[in-house]
Protein backbone atom coordinates (compact mmCIF):
# COMPACT_ATOMS: atom_id res chain seq x y z
CA UNK A 1 0.00 0.00 0.00
CA UNK A 2 1.34 3.46 -0.93
CA UNK A 3 2.15 5.87 1.86
CA UNK A 4 -0.07 8.57 0.37
CA UNK A 5 -2.91 6.06 0.52
CA UNK A 6 -2.08 5.58 4.22
CA UNK A 7 -2.47 9.31 4.75
CA UNK A 8 -5.93 9.20 3.16
CA UNK A 9 -6.88 6.24 5.33
CA UNK A 10 -5.56 8.04 8.41
CA UNK A 11 -7.60 11.08 7.55
CA UNK A 12 -10.72 8.96 7.14
CA UNK A 13 -10.16 6.94 10.28
CA UNK A 14 -12.23 9.08 12.66
CA UNK A 15 -15.48 10.59 11.61
CA UNK A 16 -17.14 11.39 14.90
CA UNK A 17 -18.09 14.89 15.85
CA UNK A 18 -17.48 16.02 19.42
CA UNK A 19 -20.50 15.19 21.52
CA UNK A 20 -19.08 16.81 24.65
CA UNK A 21 -21.08 19.82 25.69
CA UNK A 22 -20.50 22.18 28.61
CA UNK A 23 -22.09 19.78 31.07
CA UNK A 24 -20.12 16.80 29.83
CA UNK A 25 -16.92 18.81 30.00
CA UNK A 26 -17.52 19.87 33.59
CA UNK A 27 -18.11 16.22 34.53
CA UNK A 28 -14.75 15.28 33.02
CA UNK A 29 -13.05 18.22 34.73
CA UNK A 30 -14.48 17.18 38.10
CA UNK A 31 -12.67 13.85 37.88
CA UNK A 32 -9.33 13.60 39.65
CA UNK A 33 -6.29 12.88 37.55
CA UNK A 34 -4.69 9.41 37.70
CA UNK A 35 -1.32 10.47 36.36
CA UNK A 36 1.71 9.45 38.46
CA UNK A 37 2.47 13.02 39.57
CA UNK A 38 -1.14 13.69 40.56
CA UNK A 39 -1.13 10.44 42.58
CA UNK A 40 2.09 11.39 44.39
CA UNK A 41 0.69 14.87 45.13
CA UNK A 42 -2.44 13.31 46.64
CA UNK A 43 -0.27 10.96 48.72
CA UNK A 44 1.72 13.91 50.05
CA UNK A 45 -1.51 15.61 51.16
CA UNK A 46 -2.50 12.41 52.99
CA UNK A 47 0.92 12.19 54.65
CA UNK A 48 0.65 15.81 55.84
CA UNK A 49 -2.89 15.21 57.11
CA UNK A 50 -1.79 12.09 58.99
CA UNK A 51 1.13 13.93 60.66
CA UNK A 52 -1.11 16.89 61.60
CA UNK A 53 -3.61 14.51 63.24
CA UNK A 54 -0.84 12.60 65.00
CA UNK A 55 0.77 15.76 66.33
CA UNK A 56 -2.64 17.14 67.33
CA UNK A 57 -3.21 14.02 69.40
CA UNK A 58 0.28 14.23 70.97
CA UNK A 59 -0.19 17.90 71.85
CA UNK A 60 -3.53 17.06 73.45
CA UNK A 61 -1.80 14.24 75.36
CA UNK A 62 0.95 16.55 76.63
CA UNK A 63 -1.41 19.41 77.54
CA UNK A 64 -3.68 17.08 79.49
CA UNK A 65 -0.68 15.32 81.02
CA UNK A 66 -2.28 11.95 80.40
CA UNK A 67 1.12 10.36 80.65
CA UNK A 68 3.01 11.87 83.58
CA UNK A 69 6.25 10.26 82.43
CA UNK A 70 6.54 12.51 79.37
CA UNK A 71 9.82 14.34 79.77
CA UNK A 72 11.33 17.32 78.03
CA UNK A 73 13.61 15.01 76.06
CA UNK A 74 10.53 13.34 74.49
CA UNK A 75 9.09 16.73 73.55
CA UNK A 76 12.39 17.83 72.02
CA UNK A 77 12.59 14.62 69.98
CA UNK A 78 9.00 15.04 68.78
CA UNK A 79 9.62 18.67 67.80
CA UNK A 80 12.78 17.61 65.95
CA UNK A 81 10.86 14.86 64.10
CA UNK A 82 8.17 17.43 63.22
CA UNK A 83 10.76 19.84 61.82
CA UNK A 84 12.36 17.06 59.77
CA UNK A 85 8.94 16.10 58.39
CA UNK A 86 8.24 19.73 57.41
CA UNK A 87 11.59 19.91 55.56
CA UNK A 88 10.76 16.62 53.79
CA UNK A 89 7.23 17.72 52.83
CA UNK A 90 8.42 21.12 51.62
CA UNK A 91 11.22 19.62 49.49
CA UNK A 92 8.92 16.95 48.06
CA UNK A 93 6.25 19.51 47.19
CA UNK A 94 8.86 21.70 45.48
CA UNK A 95 10.09 18.69 43.51
CA UNK A 96 6.55 17.72 42.48
CA UNK A 97 5.72 21.24 41.28
CA UNK A 98 8.75 21.22 39.02
CA UNK A 99 8.28 17.65 37.89
CA UNK A 100 6.59 18.12 34.55
CA UNK A 101 5.85 20.60 31.83
CA UNK A 102 3.10 19.05 29.69
CA UNK A 103 3.09 21.99 27.29
CA UNK A 104 6.85 21.60 26.59
CA UNK A 105 8.58 19.51 23.91
CA UNK A 106 7.97 15.83 24.58
CA UNK A 107 11.66 14.95 24.95
CA UNK A 108 12.45 17.71 27.43
CA UNK A 109 9.33 16.96 29.45
CA UNK A 110 10.18 13.27 29.65
CA UNK A 111 13.76 13.90 30.79
CA UNK A 112 12.52 16.43 33.35
CA UNK A 113 10.05 13.88 34.67
CA UNK A 114 12.62 11.10 34.77
CA UNK A 115 15.21 13.18 36.66
CA UNK A 116 12.65 14.44 39.18
CA UNK A 117 11.15 11.00 39.69
CA UNK A 118 14.60 9.51 40.34
CA UNK A 119 15.31 12.31 42.85
CA UNK A 120 11.96 11.64 44.51
CA UNK A 121 12.62 7.91 44.80
CA UNK A 122 16.05 8.65 46.35
CA UNK A 123 14.37 11.05 48.78
CA UNK A 124 11.79 8.41 49.74
CA UNK A 125 14.51 5.83 50.20
CA UNK A 126 16.68 8.05 52.39
CA UNK A 127 13.81 9.50 54.43
CA UNK A 128 12.26 6.04 54.85
CA UNK A 129 15.46 4.49 56.19
CA UNK A 130 16.54 7.47 58.31
CA UNK A 131 12.95 7.73 59.58
CA UNK A 132 12.99 4.11 60.77
CA UNK A 133 16.24 4.68 62.69
CA UNK A 134 14.90 7.92 64.15
CA UNK A 135 11.56 6.44 65.22
CA UNK A 136 13.36 3.43 66.72
CA UNK A 137 15.68 5.69 68.73
CA UNK A 138 12.78 7.85 69.96
CA UNK A 139 10.71 4.78 70.86
CA UNK A 140 13.72 3.23 72.65
CA UNK A 141 14.49 6.41 74.58
CA UNK A 142 10.87 6.97 75.60
CA UNK A 143 10.25 3.37 76.68
CA UNK A 144 13.58 3.21 78.55
CA UNK A 145 12.89 6.45 80.42
CA UNK A 146 9.35 5.32 81.21
CA UNK A 147 10.66 2.02 82.53
CA UNK A 148 13.18 3.79 84.72
CA UNK A 149 10.78 6.44 86.04
CA UNK A 150 11.74 10.09 86.37
CA UNK A 151 15.44 9.45 86.97
CA UNK A 152 17.45 8.93 83.82
CA UNK A 153 20.10 6.19 84.02
CA UNK A 154 22.41 5.01 81.30
CA UNK A 155 21.42 1.52 80.09
CA UNK A 156 23.57 -1.53 80.86
CA UNK A 157 25.94 -2.71 78.15
CA UNK A 158 23.89 -5.84 77.46
CA UNK A 159 20.69 -3.81 77.11
CA UNK A 160 22.47 -1.46 74.75
CA UNK A 161 23.84 -4.34 72.66
CA UNK A 162 20.37 -5.94 72.39
CA UNK A 163 18.85 -2.57 71.51
CA UNK A 164 21.46 -1.95 68.77
CA UNK A 165 21.18 -5.53 67.44
CA UNK A 166 17.38 -5.31 67.12
CA UNK A 167 17.79 -1.87 65.53
CA UNK A 168 20.32 -3.23 63.01
CA UNK A 169 18.00 -6.10 62.04
CA UNK A 170 15.07 -3.68 61.64
CA UNK A 171 17.23 -1.36 59.54
CA UNK A 172 18.33 -4.19 57.20
CA UNK A 173 14.72 -5.38 56.79
CA UNK A 174 13.52 -1.82 56.17
CA UNK A 175 16.37 -1.17 53.68
CA UNK A 176 15.49 -4.15 51.48
CA UNK A 177 11.73 -3.73 51.93
CA UNK A 178 11.80 -0.05 50.90
CA UNK A 179 13.97 -0.93 47.86
CA UNK A 180 11.44 -3.56 46.78
CA UNK A 181 8.42 -1.37 47.56
CA UNK A 182 9.76 1.67 45.72
CA UNK A 183 10.50 -0.50 42.71
CA UNK A 184 6.92 -1.78 42.77
CA UNK A 185 5.59 1.78 42.99
CA UNK A 186 7.83 3.67 40.59
CA UNK A 187 10.30 1.20 39.06
CA UNK A 188 8.20 0.24 36.05
CA UNK A 189 7.27 3.83 35.28
CA UNK A 190 10.90 4.97 35.54
CA UNK A 191 11.96 2.12 33.25
CA UNK A 192 9.24 3.07 30.75
CA UNK A 193 10.44 6.70 30.70
CA UNK A 194 14.05 5.52 30.27
CA UNK A 195 13.05 3.30 27.33
CA UNK A 196 11.19 6.12 25.57
CA UNK A 197 14.13 8.50 26.07
CA UNK A 198 16.50 5.80 24.82
CA UNK A 199 14.37 5.46 21.67
CA UNK A 200 14.56 9.24 21.22
CA UNK A 201 18.30 9.39 21.90
CA UNK A 202 18.83 6.45 19.56
CA UNK A 203 17.26 8.43 16.76
CA UNK A 204 19.34 11.46 17.75
CA UNK A 205 22.61 9.55 17.59
CA UNK A 206 22.09 8.33 14.01
Amino acid sequence: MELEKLKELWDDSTNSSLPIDKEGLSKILNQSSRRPIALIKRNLKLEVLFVILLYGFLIWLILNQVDSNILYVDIILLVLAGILFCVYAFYKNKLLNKMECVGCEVKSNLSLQLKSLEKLVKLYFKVGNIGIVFVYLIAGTISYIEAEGDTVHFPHVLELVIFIAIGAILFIISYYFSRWYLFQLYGKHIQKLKNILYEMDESDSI
Partner: protein
Amino acid sequence: MAEKDFLDVLRQHERMIHKICHVYASDTSTKQDLFQEIILQLWKSFNGFRNESKISTWVYRIALNTALTQYRRGKSKVPLSFIGFEFKDMIDKNDSSDQQENIDLLYNAISNLNEVEKAIVMLYLDDKSYEEMEEILGISKGTLRVKMNRIKEKLRQFTKTS
Protein backbone atom coordinates in the same frame (compact mmCIF):
# COMPACT_ATOMS: atom_id res chain seq x y z
CA MET B 1 -15.87 32.52 28.20
CA ALA B 2 -12.76 30.44 28.81
CA GLU B 3 -14.89 27.32 28.80
CA LYS B 4 -16.42 28.27 25.45
CA ASP B 5 -12.99 28.95 23.93
CA PHE B 6 -11.76 25.68 25.32
CA LEU B 7 -14.68 23.76 23.79
CA ASP B 8 -13.87 25.39 20.46
CA VAL B 9 -10.27 24.21 20.70
CA LEU B 10 -11.47 20.72 21.61
CA ARG B 11 -13.83 20.66 18.62
CA GLN B 12 -10.98 21.63 16.30
CA HIS B 13 -8.67 18.92 17.64
CA GLU B 14 -11.06 16.19 18.70
CA ARG B 15 -10.16 13.85 15.83
CA MET B 16 -6.48 14.16 16.58
CA ILE B 17 -7.04 13.36 20.28
CA HIS B 18 -9.13 10.35 19.24
CA LYS B 19 -6.35 9.03 17.04
CA ILE B 20 -3.78 9.40 19.80
CA CYS B 21 -6.06 7.44 22.15
CA HIS B 22 -6.50 4.69 19.55
CA VAL B 23 -2.78 4.44 18.93
CA TYR B 24 -1.59 4.55 22.56
CA ALA B 25 -4.35 2.64 24.35
CA SER B 26 -5.27 -0.95 23.73
CA ASP B 27 -8.76 -1.37 25.19
CA THR B 28 -11.85 0.82 25.38
CA SER B 29 -11.55 1.54 29.09
CA THR B 30 -7.91 2.71 28.74
CA LYS B 31 -8.88 4.78 25.71
CA GLN B 32 -11.62 6.46 27.73
CA ASP B 33 -9.26 7.13 30.62
CA LEU B 34 -6.64 8.56 28.29
CA PHE B 35 -9.21 10.73 26.51
CA GLN B 36 -10.39 12.22 29.82
CA GLU B 37 -6.84 12.67 31.06
CA ILE B 38 -5.83 14.54 27.90
CA ILE B 39 -8.83 16.85 28.22
CA LEU B 40 -8.01 17.42 31.90
CA GLN B 41 -4.39 18.29 31.10
CA LEU B 42 -5.44 20.56 28.21
CA TRP B 43 -7.84 22.38 30.50
CA LYS B 44 -5.22 22.82 33.25
CA SER B 45 -2.75 24.28 30.77
CA PHE B 46 -5.28 26.27 28.73
CA ASN B 47 -4.83 29.56 30.60
CA GLY B 48 -1.07 29.25 30.22
CA PHE B 49 -1.20 29.09 26.40
CA ARG B 50 0.57 32.20 25.14
CA ASN B 51 0.26 31.81 21.34
CA GLU B 52 4.02 31.28 21.13
CA SER B 53 3.37 28.23 18.99
CA LYS B 54 0.46 27.03 16.86
CA ILE B 55 -2.50 25.81 18.89
CA SER B 56 -2.23 22.41 17.17
CA THR B 57 1.45 22.13 18.22
CA TRP B 58 0.45 22.92 21.80
CA VAL B 59 -2.42 20.38 21.76
CA TYR B 60 -0.17 17.73 20.23
CA ARG B 61 2.52 18.30 22.89
CA ILE B 62 0.06 17.95 25.75
CA ALA B 63 -1.72 14.96 24.24
CA LEU B 64 1.51 13.10 23.50
CA ASN B 65 3.09 13.98 26.87
CA THR B 66 -0.04 12.65 28.57
CA ALA B 67 -0.25 9.51 26.43
CA LEU B 68 3.42 8.63 26.88
CA THR B 69 3.40 9.07 30.65
CA GLN B 70 -0.01 7.63 31.46
CA TYR B 71 -0.28 5.26 34.37
CA ARG B 72 -2.11 2.00 33.81
CA ARG B 73 -3.36 1.00 37.23
CA GLY B 74 -6.63 0.71 39.07
CA LYS B 75 -10.19 0.93 37.89
CA SER B 76 -11.49 3.11 35.15
CA LYS B 77 -12.94 6.52 35.90
CA VAL B 78 -16.55 7.43 35.23
CA PRO B 79 -17.51 5.77 31.92
CA LEU B 80 -17.66 8.28 29.08
CA SER B 81 -21.09 6.93 28.13
CA PHE B 82 -22.28 8.40 31.44
CA ILE B 83 -21.62 11.87 30.10
CA GLY B 84 -23.15 11.03 26.73
CA PHE B 85 -19.92 10.24 24.95
CA GLU B 86 -19.04 6.97 23.26
CA PHE B 87 -15.89 6.00 21.47
CA LYS B 88 -17.06 5.68 17.89
CA ASP B 89 -15.94 3.09 15.42
CA MET B 90 -12.91 4.10 13.48
CA ILE B 91 -15.05 4.56 10.39
CA ASP B 92 -18.62 5.36 9.47
CA LYS B 93 -20.90 2.37 9.21
CA ASN B 94 -21.72 3.39 5.63
CA ASP B 95 -18.16 2.92 4.48
CA SER B 96 -17.19 -0.23 2.68
CA SER B 97 -15.74 -3.20 4.51
CA ASP B 98 -12.61 -2.90 2.34
CA GLN B 99 -12.02 0.56 3.72
CA GLN B 100 -12.55 -0.75 7.27
CA GLU B 101 -10.12 -3.56 6.59
CA ASN B 102 -7.50 -1.13 5.32
CA ILE B 103 -7.91 1.10 8.36
CA ASP B 104 -7.53 -1.91 10.66
CA LEU B 105 -4.42 -2.81 8.72
CA LEU B 106 -3.00 0.68 9.16
CA TYR B 107 -3.61 0.67 12.92
CA ASN B 108 -2.18 -2.84 13.20
CA ALA B 109 0.93 -1.69 11.37
CA ILE B 110 1.29 1.32 13.69
CA SER B 111 0.81 -0.86 16.77
CA ASN B 112 3.99 -2.72 15.82
CA LEU B 113 6.08 0.44 16.12
CA ASN B 114 7.69 1.61 19.34
CA GLU B 115 6.26 4.53 21.37
CA VAL B 116 8.44 7.19 19.71
CA GLU B 117 7.89 5.84 16.20
CA LYS B 118 4.13 5.89 16.82
CA ALA B 119 4.33 9.60 17.66
CA ILE B 120 6.46 10.36 14.59
CA VAL B 121 4.22 8.42 12.21
CA MET B 122 1.08 10.10 13.58
CA LEU B 123 2.59 13.52 12.95
CA TYR B 124 3.68 12.42 9.47
CA LEU B 125 0.23 11.09 8.60
CA ASP B 126 -1.29 14.34 9.87
CA ASP B 127 0.88 16.15 7.31
CA LYS B 128 3.06 17.93 9.84
CA SER B 129 6.31 19.37 8.54
CA TYR B 130 9.63 18.27 10.04
CA GLU B 131 9.90 21.73 11.67
CA GLU B 132 6.59 21.16 13.45
CA MET B 133 7.57 17.62 14.41
CA GLU B 134 10.79 18.98 15.92
CA GLU B 135 8.82 21.62 17.80
CA ILE B 136 6.48 18.99 19.23
CA LEU B 137 8.87 16.15 19.98
CA GLY B 138 12.18 17.94 20.55
CA ILE B 139 14.02 15.62 18.15
CA SER B 140 16.18 17.30 15.48
CA LYS B 141 14.92 17.46 11.87
CA GLY B 142 17.83 15.43 10.49
CA THR B 143 17.28 12.52 12.82
CA LEU B 144 13.53 12.71 12.31
CA ARG B 145 14.09 12.26 8.56
CA VAL B 146 16.29 9.21 9.09
CA LYS B 147 13.86 7.79 11.60
CA MET B 148 10.93 8.47 9.25
CA ASN B 149 12.62 6.56 6.43
CA ARG B 150 12.95 3.55 8.71
CA ILE B 151 9.31 3.83 9.75
CA LYS B 152 8.14 4.08 6.12
CA GLU B 153 10.09 0.94 5.33
CA LYS B 154 8.59 -0.88 8.32
CA LEU B 155 5.07 0.19 7.35
CA ARG B 156 5.63 -0.79 3.71
CA GLN B 157 6.84 -4.24 4.70
CA PHE B 158 4.03 -4.74 7.16
CA THR B 159 1.29 -3.65 4.77
CA LYS B 160 2.82 -5.80 2.01
CA THR B 161 2.92 -8.96 4.10
CA SER B 162 -0.56 -8.47 5.57
